[in-house]
């Protein structure tokens, strides 16, 4: 061996020792992180975090997320270093499905969307929501979702206890065809991953045609506050598209629409008048009636109902279900194996 070889050998030996040291250090760290004592502390920490998040509305996320992340690190380290998991496959699968669940929930939170929208019967939902919250990476295609509410029925028991809701809808598929469906209390309308749920929010909506001088005619509706929840304040303020003045509209109902004493069904009122106030002027309108508003004419076409929908998007749902199913099955399997060694009444 010449000098050069000796030098190289010494150098590579140094690297090997160095790597082995580092490896040992990492394994040592993992072992520490995998401590089951730590698991118990983190369980307690998570429980405290949940209580804090529950009490303080301004600290909803981190008190829960931090212990969950620590638990995940603790569990991953345990899976990597604890020999129990190599001997007991079912136990391993159970714990891995817990990690999978955590990852899926996190992915869901990053890409979810929730919101609300009211859709007047006969009008097309155009992809716009009244309010919405979504994860930073939400990239669904809500703008292209289209459906029409074709009317709904809700029965009430005496005391105005709401019964089942049945809502007929038509929705546009990706193939360009319209399809009919009936949705309701347990049955959402699902289009491109967006779920539309009927809610207890629904009410009446006067439909108007707005004819601006020299501009194109547009039709639209004004959704009045929910009925019967706010039955004594059926009024709303509205500005027709392109108009300069706003209109205050009130539905004055001259009959009992939902009799609290009896079995009844949600319906449009028959005896009513629509009061429109523009500036100091007050008008009473019947279907077909019109009124001049600034630089256009407003025609009241009639009354329809509107349904409020809750909108929800989370692509992880089927995966979450699969991870849950796997978790329970493997947990049951683990205990089955463990307990079948000795009888229960021994």
């Amino acid at each position, binding site marked *: 061996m010449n000098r050069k070889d000796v030098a190289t050998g010494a150098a590579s030996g140094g690297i090997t020792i160095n790597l082995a040291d580092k490896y040992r250090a990492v394994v040592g760290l993992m072992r520490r992180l995998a401590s089951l004592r730590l698991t118990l502390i983190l369980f307690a920490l998570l*429980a405290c975090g*949940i209580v804090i998040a529950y009490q303080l509305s301004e600290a909803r996320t981190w008190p829960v997320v931090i212990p969950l992340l620590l638990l995940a690190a603790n569990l991953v380290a345990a899976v990597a270093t604890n020999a129990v998991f190599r001997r007991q496959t079912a136990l391993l699968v159970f714990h891995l499905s817990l990690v999978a669940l955590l990852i899926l929930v996190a992915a869901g939170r990053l890409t979810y969307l929730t919101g609300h929208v009211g859709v007047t019967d006969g009008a097309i939902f155009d992809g716009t929501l009244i309010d919405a919250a979504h994860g930073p990476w939400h990239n669904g295609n809500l703008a292209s979702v289209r459906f029409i509410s074709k009317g709904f029925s809700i029965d009430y*028991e005496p*005391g105005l206890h*709401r019964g089942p809701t049945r809502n007929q809808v038509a929705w546009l598929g990706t193939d360009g065809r319209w399809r009919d469906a009936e949705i309701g209390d347990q049955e959402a309308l699902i289009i491109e991953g967006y779920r539309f749920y009927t809610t207890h929010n629904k009410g009446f909506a006067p439909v108007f045609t707005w004819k601006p001088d020299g501009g194109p005619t547009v039709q639209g509706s004004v959704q009045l506050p929910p009925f019967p929840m706010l039955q004594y304040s059926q009024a709303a303020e509205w500005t027709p598209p392109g108009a300069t003045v706003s209109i205050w509209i009130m539905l004055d109902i001259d009959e009992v629409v939902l009799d609290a004493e009896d079995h009844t069904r949600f319906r449009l009122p028959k005896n009513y008048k629509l009061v429109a106030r523009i500036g100091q002027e007050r008008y009473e309108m019947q279907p077909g009636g019109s009124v001049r508003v600034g630089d256009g004419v407003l025609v009241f076409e009639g009354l329809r109902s509107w349904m409020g929908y809750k909108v929800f998007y989370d692509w992880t749902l089927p995966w979450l279900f699969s991870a849950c199913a796997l978790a329970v099955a493997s947990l049951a399997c683990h205990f089955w194996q463990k307990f079948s060694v000795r009888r229960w*009444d021994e």
Partner: protein
Amino acid sequence: METELQILWAAVVAYVVGGTLAVVTLVLGKRRERTILGLIACGLGLQTLSIALRWERLGHGPFITMFEILCSNVWSLMLAYLIAYWRIPRIRGSAAVVMPLMFIMLGWLMLAHPGEGHFPPTYTTPWLFIHIGLGKVFLGAVLVAVGLSCVILLRRAGIGVSRFQQLPPDRQLDELAFRCMAIGLIFHTLMLIAGAIWAQDAWGRYWAWDPLETWAFITWLTVAFTLHARVTFRVSPQAHATMILMVFVTAFLTFFGVPFISQAAHQGAI
């Protein structure tokens, strides 16, 4: 309604006589296990009849009012304990602690108003039965574990040592209690999953940390904590028994406390 309540009273009487007999025979060192089994079974039969009559009259099961929730849980807890009592003869002495625990619930039930509540449209789904049924199995399994844990703790405290002699040694009771908790964990997990599926269908969200969901999750954590502590630290039967009692208290508060104090529990009723 009168008949239902009379039959329920008869069931309560059967339970109370059975429970009293369990305590008295244990104290006197006698064994009347078949009679106790018969009385609990008789109470259960009568209570089933009472629940069935009310179900038929109202058109829905016992899931709405506090009276109904208590009644159906007394029923399921009694059923769970009856099965354990019947299938594992060596733990029958624990009836002397489990039945007095049940007396508290029976007393509460008799004080609750038996009036009817509104059955919300979101409850018209098989998930109602699945979700609630799974929860009942969980609570039943924990009740059996609690009975065994109480025996361990009483013996350690020097109370009724000779009376509880007929039961297996602490180590074996501890193992049985652990098995019950394991069953409890499986069913609690299933209950949470079924609840999440139902909540997604009915309210458009699978989890929203409402009071009941929050406390149910904390209960799940306490069960996980107990199982882990036992496996990893090989804790003494006494410490394990204490933890099981804590799980029971948390579960009890979740099942009966939260719906009772919070109007917002599971917003489903609107």
